[in-house]
């Protein structure tokens, strides 16, 4: 019996499976169930009603907030991709010494292992009304009064997203780039391709899987976020995550659950589309 590899495999994967059932599948099932319940100010009442969804789809706020969520995701995606691709390209193709390459790569990844909250807080002295950015702009004579939109605005929210998540583009793109066979690039050059042509016709297509994995990370992190938007906008902007966390703060769990279900479906559709372009198992 124990010689059977299927049984052995499941035995070895059993702790993993149990954790995922208990803390991933069951919570999602619970959220779906609770999204059909009703709530009073003090308690939640089991039942089956579409009230939460009717309210959600009937409210113009919902559409506005979903639009804002997509807006944050799209802008952050474009910027992290542009920056992440450039950084990865530099590391992979312009740094020849492997020790230097590893050191610089680590330099890019270390912030990932420190606290996001602290990294958000650290923008305050920079962006505030009397912050570094404003005093610099004023002393250069670019503006004569402090810019108000630097902190607590869409600008600061997106800046923080880019700051926190560009890493998730750099790492997978760098990973695919280092696996590109250098003879392909030599071949392109031998055939007369310019540096730019090599980049767009050889490197870019071969880097697509890394770009896709980075995209999955960035889009899901931004779409599911609530804390960055809350903190960096000083509670003045909203996205879907904040809609959910506000309902939670008001103990309106069924309504929070309904919003969460719609958010989950949205994220899964986006991921489903992206996974058509990349086979993650092959890219590891």
């Amino acid at each position, binding site marked *: 019996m124990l010689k059977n590899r299927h049984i052995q495999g499941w035995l070895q994967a059993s*702790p*993993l*499976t149990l954790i995922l059932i208990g803390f991933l599948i069951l919570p*999602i099932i*619970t959220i779906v169930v609770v999204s059909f319940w009703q709530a009073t100010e003090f308690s939640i009442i089991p039942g089956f009603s579409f009230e939460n969804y009717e309210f959600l789809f009937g409210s113009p706020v919902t559409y506005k907030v979903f639009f804002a969520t997509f807006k944050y995701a799209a802008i952050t995606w474009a910027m992290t991709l542009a920056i992440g691709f450039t950084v990865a390209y530099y590391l992979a193709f312009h740094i*020849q010494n492997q020790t230097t390459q590893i050191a610089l790569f680590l330099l890019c990844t270390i912030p990932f292992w*420190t*606290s996001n*909250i602290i990294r958000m807080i650290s923008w305050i002295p920079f962006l505030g009304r009397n912050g570094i950015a404003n005093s610099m702009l004023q002393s250069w004579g670019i503006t004569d009064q402090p810019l108000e939109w630097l902190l607590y605005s869409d600008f600061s929210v997106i800046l923080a997203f880019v700051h926190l998540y560009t890493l998730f583009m750099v790492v997978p793109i760098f990973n695919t780039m280092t696996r590109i066979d250098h003879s392909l690039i030599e071949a392109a050059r031998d055939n007369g391709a310019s540096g730019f042509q090599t980049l767009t016709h050889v490197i870019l297509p071969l880097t697509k899987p890394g770009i896709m994995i980075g995209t999955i990370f960035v889009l899901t992190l931004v779409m599911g976020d609530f804390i960055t938007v809350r903190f960096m906008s000083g509670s003045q902007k909203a996205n879907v995550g904040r809609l959910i966390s506000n309902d939670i703060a008001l103990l309106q769990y069924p309504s929070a659950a309904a919003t969460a279900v719609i958010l989950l479906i949205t994220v899964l559709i986006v991921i489903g589309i992206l996974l058509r372009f990349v086979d993650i*198992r092959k890219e590891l």
Partner: protein
Amino acid sequence: MEKKSKSFYVLTAFFALFILFLYGPTLTIGILSFQGPGGGLTFPMQGTSLNWFRELFQEQAVGDIWGSFRRSFALGLMVMVTTVVVSVMGGFAFRKRFYGSGILFYLIIASLVIPSILISLGVGLIFNQLGLKIHWATSGFGSQLTWTLPFGLLIMFAVFNRFDKSFEEAARDQGASPWQTVRYVVLPIIAPSLIGVGLFGFTLSYDEFARTLLTAGSYNTLPLEIFGMTTNVTTPVIYALGTLTTLFSLLIIGAFLLTVWVLGKRRARFGSDAGQGV
């Protein structure tokens, strides 16, 4: 790429700006945490002092920072050990390509991409409905694992995809039992990657916010405590705390990287006896 072209210098400048962008803000609060006693949250510095660090160590006006630090540290260790053990077992399991492993793989990806607040809300609701008390070491622990395990497993997949099976075959041919093969051949080879998994496990747990928000119970972890402070503390004491926990994180990262480096050195020295035979 033989000679340093113009694009090399442009890209170097871009990279330097990127590093400045990554580290600049953190360095800024590092400097501002030494703000004089009369200073505020932004420049200019009103002298320099250790005032704000002292305030952190005094009996708390600002909440239970040291208690939350101890909890975060303990939780980080719990998550780290669990992540390493479960990921290694999972990694071995997936090598067998057992029936149903595809579904489990997609569950791991789902665990990675699902918005954190859903885990927080769902786990909180389950404990609530079952009449269980949420606590950082139970509900918080489990919720964090849904974030650290996918990273651990992805690393294990990457490791085993590159693993040379002939080492195992050689061990088996020499009469090693399956357990001996794992213990004396496979585990030593993958050890540096396990340290990497441990690093992810500890630091991701230590910094986790969203998944612990509704699952930590009445005793806060450090990130929750810090976030609470942002709403009611308006002095550089929060920078002092930020600087200290960042230094702590850097210390942990440094310790892990050093271990990997030392292992690599030792391996380079003792790894092969090629050419040293009779």
